[in-house]
């Protein structure tokens, strides 16, 4: 069955360049200036799946072909096709807002700094979690209606999928939506940052899950992430997922390396010496708190997440365990360490799961 498809990637104009396929399923790479209506040279007939094929890029966009639709999660493909079928821009916005309206609200407890999308002029939060099959699920919220719509689009499109598939998604699919969402990786690009955050969280969750640690995640987490199913503890990675940061251990007191300053090292040494932990994770999350009062006047190492699995905690109540740790780190607390978030477990607790 052959068909060719007329569409317009720029919906605000009335021109309708002819969409062309030369190789399936990749789009024509940059022959952008050759859009004359009358030129028939570029039209070819070939088998195209009956659902609407991807439209051609407008001349102003990238010269590299878009990621093939088949690589995208199926629900996302459906959403894209839906948007493509809606041509009028105003109607697209309505569609977007409709998604946003139907987005499940996000509980206030998840509106944490760790879940906030950087670089949005509006506020956007994204929460991620894995099910038993290691598929990632998302929830999101925003105070701006359009951003909420975009978030909903991503949540609906990506939820329930295996992590590797989510990680493979390239943000340029947004071009197909025809919403003219900018893809420039600038500070203000909420859409791009949302997707990146979702991908990063998915990766973190997967890494955590694979290590088999932190599954009884009812940690006494002192900071704001208190949640039952396995949430990603904020790995200290800003942008790139795999910048070797404290991803935690297998048994055998592996350390969290990467990125610990002198105080972090001291903390680690002290805890190792005094508690002989079978698992120790020291994470510097000071950057998350860089704005507020506790940090002023310090050298930057002010907030840490600690995860300690040690026999020393046996027989001690939670409060006593924390007191023990605080006691050991008293000197640090006197000299500029502002806050600790402690998960303190015994080996049996961790094994019991």
């Amino acid at each position, binding site marked *: 069955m052959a068909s060719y498809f007329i569409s317009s990637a720029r919906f*605000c*104009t009335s021109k309708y360049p002819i969409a062309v396929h030369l190789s399936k399923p990749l789009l024509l790479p940059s022959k952008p200036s050759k859009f004359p209506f009358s030129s028939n040279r570029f039209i070819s007939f070939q088998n195209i799946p009956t659902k609407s094929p991807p439209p051609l890029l407008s001349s102003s966009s990238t010269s590299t072909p878009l990621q093939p639709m088949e690589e995208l999660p199926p629900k996302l493909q459906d959403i894209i096709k839906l948007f493509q079928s809606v041509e009028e*821009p*105003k109607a697209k*916005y*309505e569609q977007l*807002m409709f998604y946003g*309206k139907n987005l499940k609200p996000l509980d206030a407890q998840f509106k944490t700094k760790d879940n906030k999308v950087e670089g949005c*002029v*509006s*506020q956007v939060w994204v929460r991620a979690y894995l099910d038993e099959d290691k598929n990632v699920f998302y929830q999101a919220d925003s*105070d*701006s*209606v*359009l*951003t909420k719509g975009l978030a909903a689009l991503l949540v609906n499109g990506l939820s329930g999928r295996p992590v590797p598939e989510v990680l493979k998604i390239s943000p340029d699919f947004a071009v197909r939506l025809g919403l*003219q969402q900018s893809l420039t990786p600038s500070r203000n690009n909420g859409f791009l940052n949302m997707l990146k955050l979702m991908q990063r969280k998915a990766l973190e969750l997967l890494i955590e899950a694979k290590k088999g640690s932190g599954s009884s995640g009812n940690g006494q987490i002192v900071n704001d992430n208190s949640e039952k199913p396995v949430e990603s503890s904020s790995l200290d990675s800003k942008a790139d997922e795999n910048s070797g940061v404290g991803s935690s251990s297998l048994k055998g007191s592996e350390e969290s390396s990467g990125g610990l300053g002198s105080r972090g090292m001291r903390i680690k040494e002290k805890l190792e010496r005094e508690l002989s932990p079978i698992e120790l994770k020291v994470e510097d999350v000071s950057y998350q708190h860089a704005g507020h009062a506790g940090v*002023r*006047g310090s050298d930057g190492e002010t907030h840490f997440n600690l995860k300690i699995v040690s026999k020393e905690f046996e027989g001690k109540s939670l409060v006593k365990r924390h007191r023990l740790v605080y006691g050991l780190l008293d000197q640090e607390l006197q000299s500029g360490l502002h806050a600790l978030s402690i998960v303190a477990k015994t080996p049996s607790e961790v094994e019991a799961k």
Partner: protein
Amino acid sequence: MEGLVVKLPSFPFLSPNISSSSSSSTFRLGFRRFSASISAAVNEGFVSLGQLTRPDFPILHQEVNGSKLVYLDNAATSQKPTAVLKSLQNYYEAYNSNVHRGIHYLSAKATDEYELARKKVAAFINASDSAEIVFTRNATEAINLVAYSWGLSNLKPRDEIILTIAEHHSAIVPWQIVAQKTGAILKFVSLDENEVPDVEKLREMISTSTKLVVVHHVSNVLGSVLPIEDIVIWAHAVGAKVLVDACQSVPHMVVDVQGLDADFLVASSHKMCGPTGIGFLFGKSNLLLTMPPFLGGGEMISDVFLDHSTYAEPPSRFEAGTPAIGEAIGLGAAIDYLSGIGMQKIHDYEMELANYLYEKLCSVPNIRIYGPKPSDDIHRAALCSFNIENIHPTDIATFLDQQHGVAIRSGHHCAQPLHRRLGVNASARASLHFYNTEEDVDNFIQSLNDTVSFFNSFK
């Protein structure tokens, strides 16, 4: 009004081909004649200043997203007239050369033009001497210059710096950094019931511990104007200095640093129809003379040895490295253009526009405009930051842009403390300049109403 055609003689600056080799004095003469004609035309009411000057700004004549561009983001940056564009091009085509040290013809000419630009800036703000003008990259760098140079060498523990919560981040953050290093204390004046910084409170806060008062002249969010002369009098009475952030005032009204008696004043070229990459600090001579260098390097030295160097006199002392020569000359051209119209004329026109904008905005249901209500005593600048109930400003700005080609800004406008005090995360802001017209405002309001109904219909 009958169908009278106003025949405007073609003046040098309306026609694009200005060669800068013609002496600047004929240039200025042309402006004076033009200015007279503008007054005539505008006074007779045949055409507004906006309509008259629009043709000089090529960028305004385009379509975005399928609609005619309506540019209302002038507080963020202004557009440039052809005269400025040409002067930049001409610099690079005819006499680009490094300044101050060269012997040859081109460099002498570049130096002349660069220093002439400095004189133009001095004259524009009525500084007594062009040596009181230090060229910087922008106003932010100028404030940092004062902070690091004057601040670090003059502030002691428990010295007080007074600011308002409505200051731009560039007027707050450098002082936070310096306060941390010197032990000085920052004190902030909040807003009064008119949503303007409380000037009475500010007066009370000034004490013998005060060493510096940092205030904006015109607020980029509230549109309010502060009584700088009074503030300077109060500050000087206790021996404190005053740094005036004039970024939103210099482009829009007559600013007279001698009349204000300000110690420091900063502004950016890109907000006053000049190119980006250049701004200036005005500092009183006696102050600049006592200040140590900011950045070190070439141009700001006198002699350099291996173990020490001696420094040049101001303003060179604070201008390390090759300056933004073309840009400074472009700023000079912008000043010529503005002077040709007359800052008072620009101010009067923008006052009308400001009132018109405010009135029209008030008619939008559920709108909350920040800042004072205009009256006989209270004049607002031609900008309005606002929020509409239940609609996020980003949604408004996005829709306005995509559906109507209207460019406004949404966010905190580099004034987070102010927004926190107002109790919002972000606001939308429309800001005008003398090349905007009432039609622009009408267009904006119409589009805004359409936007509001779109989002409301969805609830």
